[in-house]
């Protein structure tokens, strides 16, 4: 076995010593090329032959580019609930990070506009059942609120102010009303004006506009809005209570002497006691 290995090694070394003569190689090469040319004429000037692989590569690249542009276009149109929506949000975040600090408020305004647009489209297309807000619309509304807070902060930073998250959760009593409020044209108009002010670098005015936006959104917080039926029931309860309770005594105005003042005070105390 060992000897066989030695023979094999010997054969491999032998292979290195057996080579054709270089002069003969050159002669043979020239002969073959001449034979080739004679019987197989070289296609001169046919540069397309060499361009073919390059053309194929270019075609594949263009197909991929078109594919990616299509995906990008679809991503931009996507709404909450769509598989491409998270991609859209990620893309916006990346752009925000890349944009210089000066242009961030403007970028945020555009994002707020996009969120508003999404709520608008969803509210128009999604079916409302029993005055309940469908989950996609609710989510879109939440996102819009978050973006407005972010925008407000961004503008405030420019103005040199600190803003807290004072856009509290809206009381969801009559959900339909909130959706109607958000879809108002006024809001869109205000956002457009905010954008203009940011472009002009008039951050004070931009902040005022955003405050107005906030006001529109928080209007429903001040009014306790109840469904009609509940309102009627509450009114009835109040009326019944009023009937049961005795009427308050009528207090005649008198001259304010010391004794009268004392009496007044005592009367007040009595009232309090009652």
């Amino acid at each position: 076995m060992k000897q066989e290995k030695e023979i094999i090694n010997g054969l491999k070394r032998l292979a290195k010593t057996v080579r054709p003569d270089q002069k003969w190689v050159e002669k043979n090469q020239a002969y073959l090329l001449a034979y080739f040319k004679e019987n197989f004429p070289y296609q001169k000037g046919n540069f397309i032959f060499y361009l073919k692989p390059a053309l194929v590569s270019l075609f594949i690249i263009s197909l991929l580019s078109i594919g990616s542009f299509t995906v990008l276009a679809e991503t931009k149109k996507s709404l909450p609930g769509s598989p491409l929506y998270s991609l859209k949000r990620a893309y916006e975040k990346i752009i925000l990070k890349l944009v210089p600090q000066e242009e961030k408020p403007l970028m945020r305004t555009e994002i707020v506009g996009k969120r508003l647009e999404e709520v608008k489209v969803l509210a128009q297309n999604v079916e409302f059942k029993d005055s309940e807000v469908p989950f996609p619309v609710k989510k879109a509304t939440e996102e819009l609120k978050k973006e407005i807070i972010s925008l407000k902060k961004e503008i405030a930073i420019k103005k040199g102010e600190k803003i807290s998250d004072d856009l509290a959760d809206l009381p969801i009593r009559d959900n339909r009303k909130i959706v109607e409020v958000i879809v108002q044209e006024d809001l869109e108009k205000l956002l457009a004006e905010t954008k203009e002010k940011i472009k002009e670098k008039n951050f004070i005015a931009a902040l005022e506009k955003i405050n107005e936006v906030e006001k529109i959104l928080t209007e429903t917080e001040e009014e306790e809005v109840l469904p009609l039926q509940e309102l009627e029931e509450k009114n009835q309860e109040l009326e019944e209570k009023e009937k049961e309770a005795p009427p308050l005594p009528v207090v005649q105005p008198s001259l304010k002497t010391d004794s009268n003042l004392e009496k007044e005070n005592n009367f007040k105390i009595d009232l309090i006691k009652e």
Partner: protein
Amino acid sequence: MLRIQEKILLYRARKGDQSAFARLCDYYREKIYQYVYFRIPDQEKTEDLLSEIFTKVLDYLIKGNEIKNFRAFLYQTARNIIVDFYREKNKHEISLDEISELEIKEEKDPAKEFDLKLDLVKIEKALRRIPDRYREVIVLRYINELPFKEIAKITGENPTSLRQLVHRGLKLVKKYLQTDVTK
């Protein structure tokens, strides 16, 4: 050379690119030379046969035929030309049956163990003495360094038979080397 590179060069050669064909010839020239050199007794004829091999391959391409495995095709063409050469020369080959009758006595005496690391000339001589059938496979395996799978495509034998041929061939080479030393 990668298979894909070979395919591209072949494609270009078929379309009339002579530089592609030249590159293919350059790559395989040395290997085919070694293959032919060890298979024919007349060493001077090696260069002529080699020219003939490449010309035949070129003719095949010019006719517009497709070659799937250039290496295997080249070796098969070389084989056919060598067979034609032997037919012309009317050389006598020892058949496999005759070989099996020979008593290959292994040298058991450790004192007579020889050093095979010396003479490459002796190895070549011993290689030329063994029958062509064994020699061919040994040259393809250890000189051209082809895998058994590739050799099977060239010779038409199955890998198991090829291993047996190699083993028997090496035994004979060893025997001839030993007899050479004892002379």
